[in-house]
């Protein structure tokens, strides 16, 4: 039973345009949400996060939006750059922050 879902396995975007990556979750107890970026043969690295008390968090070119009523979050990358090409995972954690639940990932390809 997958509690965090990323329904788009891949996304292709032209350089300079916006990339929108989506994530849905089923557990209403999740309190904190994170996005990780992963390059081949490396471990995931933290990108950006959002608490359930907010609906938006911005960090440079990256913005995460949270819609709690829809149990949906999205990551916007503007403008997209070829170096952004990687697999992006969303993750969620309940209030105790002991366990993290990951989605299956979306492979982003930014074309020059």
């Amino acid at each position, binding site marked *: 039973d997958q509690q965090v879902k990323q329904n788009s396995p891949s996304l292709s975007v032209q350089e300079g345009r916006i990339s929108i990556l989506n994530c849905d979750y089923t557990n209403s107890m999740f309190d904190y949400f994170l996005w990780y970026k992963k390059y081949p*043969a490396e*471990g*995931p690295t*933290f990108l950006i996060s959002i608490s359930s008390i907010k609906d938006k968090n911005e960090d440079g070119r990256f913005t995460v939006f949270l819609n709690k009523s829809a149990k949906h979050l999205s990551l916007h990358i503007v403008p997209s750059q070829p170096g952004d090409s990687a697999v992006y*995972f969303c993750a969620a954690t309940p209030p105790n922050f002991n366990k993290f639940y990951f989605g299956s990932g979306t492979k982003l390809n930014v074309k020059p």
Partner: protein
Amino acid sequence: NAGVTQTPKFRILKIGQSMTLQCAQDMNHNYMYWYRQDPGMGLKLIYYSVGAGITDKGEVPNGYNVSRSTTEDFPLRLELAAPSQTSVYFCASRRRGATYETQYFGPGTRLLVL
């Protein structure tokens, strides 16, 4: 500061063999985690530890064992390897504190069970 290190990088096991995947961190982090990533899937939590001497099961603990005798090390043991354990294994650590995003991952161990 090496961060999170994992050894080996790659290993081939025969069915029924056993092995230990090593994980170490030098950041004095309280929390440590073991995940597996199957092709096309997300990371699944195998075991985690909130401090030396304390471990708990994650989503997919069957076939694995862990121990945490020191803050730095968190080895993962496979006793009887099965083809279903073919995967990439990631170890991670994080500091207990207010900034929950501080989860650092190792580079992974690729395991093939034949």
